[in-house]
């Protein structure tokens, strides 16, 4: 029909330019933040911060936090919080340490077992939140203390009184899965880069940057998977819907309870992944592992554009939020500033991010 054709044309004319659509993305604030922070450190920090080794230096903590932050972002988009993820890192670290050191299990058993434990705890968190209807904030605040305490008690029980469990490195030495969770990847590539003179070498001939720390690869992988799920699958729409208006979502046939419980499980598993990586890396686990990470993860998600009320946000945003975090944490050591400015800086970033994201979101959603 000519009328229909005319309308289709009309629609095409109305299509927004690519840039305008880009301006509406929730991760815009975080990307802008990365640029601002980069400019700040380019101006103030020692030039070695932006060499390859300097970049690896701040991406490593960013990666560990980012894995948690992306999971926290997805959960937040789904309308819930998990304050127990920091403690979950310690708890999963304890479970993993005991399985590998005390029981002497190979990684191929201890890693899946750690994930199963974590997923169970996440499912319990989720079930309590769903069944009781209580805010997840309160339920997981209890989890924060319970898991932290349980890690402490558990560690003392299995080590005979110490709050640190050592010997992980020895236990995993030579395990075929170890390279997946610790050390540097693509070493041959970096050796080659050094050989052709693209990156610096130590006097011994080894490259100054031996490879990409594996946690950075995990970080990128988690960001890609999360973004794929959120934007390209039906599950992603369900997460947005469940967090935006749970009644509307369940009226539309979205299995809201399942979506939320799955998100809690995924968040706990992200904590377990961070636990496994950091425990293998340091060769020991202790009860303070992951301390305060729950808040840092939430900050990451919020800087990344997530709305505290749910239904809005992005995994890519959290990815960049974590990079901002890493740059600020490490970057101050490259400057002449007192490092204790770190928290002031971070709080300031959070505030700016929230104000900025709020303004963008209002433009996008047409709220007044």
């Amino acid at each position, binding site marked *: 029909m000519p009328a229909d054709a005319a309308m289709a044309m009309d629609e095409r004319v109305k299509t927004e330019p690519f840039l305008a659509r880009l301006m509406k993305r929730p991760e815009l604030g975080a990307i802008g933040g990365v640029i601002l922070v980069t400019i700040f450190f380019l101006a103030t920090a020692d030039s070695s911060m932006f060499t390859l080794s300097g970049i690896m230096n701040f991406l490593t903590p960013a990666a560990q936090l980012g894995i948690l932050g992306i999971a926290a972002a997805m959960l937040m988009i789904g309308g819930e919080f998990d304050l127990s993820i920091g403690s979950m890192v310690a708890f999963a670290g304890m479970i993993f340490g005991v399985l590998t050191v005390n029981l002497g299990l190979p990684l191929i058993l201890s890693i899946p077992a750690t994930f199963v434990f974590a997923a169970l705890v996440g499912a319990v968190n989720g079930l309590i939140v769903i069944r009781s209807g209580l805010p997840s904030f309160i339920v997981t605040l209890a989890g924060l203390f319970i898991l932290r305490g349980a890690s402490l008690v558990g560690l003392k029980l299995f080590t005979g009184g110490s709050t640190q469990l050592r010997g992980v490195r020895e236990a995993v030495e030579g395990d075929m899965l170890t390279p997946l969770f610790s050390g540097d990847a693509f070493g041959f590539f970096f050796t080659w880069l050094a050989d052709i003179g693209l990156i610096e070498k130590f006097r011994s001939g080894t490259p100054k940057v031996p490879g990409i720390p594996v946690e950075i690869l995990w970080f990128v992988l988690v960001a890609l998977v999360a973004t794929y799920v959120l934007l390209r699958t039906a599950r992603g*729409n369900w997460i947005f819907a469940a967090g935006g208006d749970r009644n509307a979502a369940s009226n539309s046939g979205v299995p809201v309870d399942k979506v939320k419980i799955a998100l809690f499980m995924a968040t706990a598993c992200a904590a377990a992944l961070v636990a496994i990586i950091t425990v293998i890396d340091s060769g020991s686990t202790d009860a303070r592992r992951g301390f305060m990470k729950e808040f840092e993860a939430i900050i990451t998600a919020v800087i990344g554009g997530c709305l505290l009320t749910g239904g809005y946000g992005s995994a890519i945003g959290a990815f960049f939020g974590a990079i901002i975090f890493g740059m600020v944490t490490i970057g101050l050591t490259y400057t002449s500033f007192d490092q204790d400015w770190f928290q002031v800086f971070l709080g300031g970033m959070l505030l700016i991010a929230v104000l900025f994201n709020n303004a963008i979101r209002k433009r996008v959603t047409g709220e007044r």
Partner: protein
Amino acid sequence: MTRPLVELIDIEKHFGGIRAVDRVSLDLWPGEVVGVLGHNGAGKSCLMRILSGAMTPSAGEIRVNGSPASFSSPNDARAAGIETIYQTLALADHLDAAANLFLGRELKTRFGNLDDARMLAEARTVLARLNPNFKNLRDPVSSLSGGQRQVIAIARAIYFDTKILIMDEPTAALGPSETAMVADLIRQLRDEGIGIFLVSHDMHDVFELCDRVVVMNKGRLVGAHAIHEVSKDDVLSLIVKGELPADWSARNLMAEAAQ
């Protein structure tokens, strides 16, 4: 040979000692708009929730096209062709019109990804049929007007081959011109053979749109009348007192007798 789209037979719903719905029987025929009226708490929402699968009845039977059905979730009812449009225009605010239209029943590509292009095209077609002025399909629905949101809700209903539509106060949140648009849509859907339960407090809408009215009072069905049998006062009396005025006789018969 026509038969009712849906029959509710002796439906009961108890909450503790309270009978929210007390042995109610009701049917709906193709191409018919039935107004469901009653005070707040009269049980009409409860009855509609039972039919939409959001609540399970304590006793009674539901038949769809003559065969018994039992719904344990809204998805069951939806699979039987019963769609509900809620008063609050409940949509997922941060998703766009196409995502809302297909929420829970997303179209996928061969690889299991969301087929955004096809969903957008389908949404464009179905929304254009309902309201040619609907253009901003890519915006989050929170930025749309109440009328546009209602159009999306109705589009959800008709896209998925609905036979029975439950509309809970469809015009309560709308302005006058949007109300008129929704009224036109209701007539359009009725003419296509869809049966509609219209839950409403708006007597004007009811008399404008409905073929029959049923009135609930304290959980019981106190009256079921063809619309031309009753006046607004008769219906008000049923709503308030639970019975017709003492001197009532069918309005259309009176009119015939007077001639």
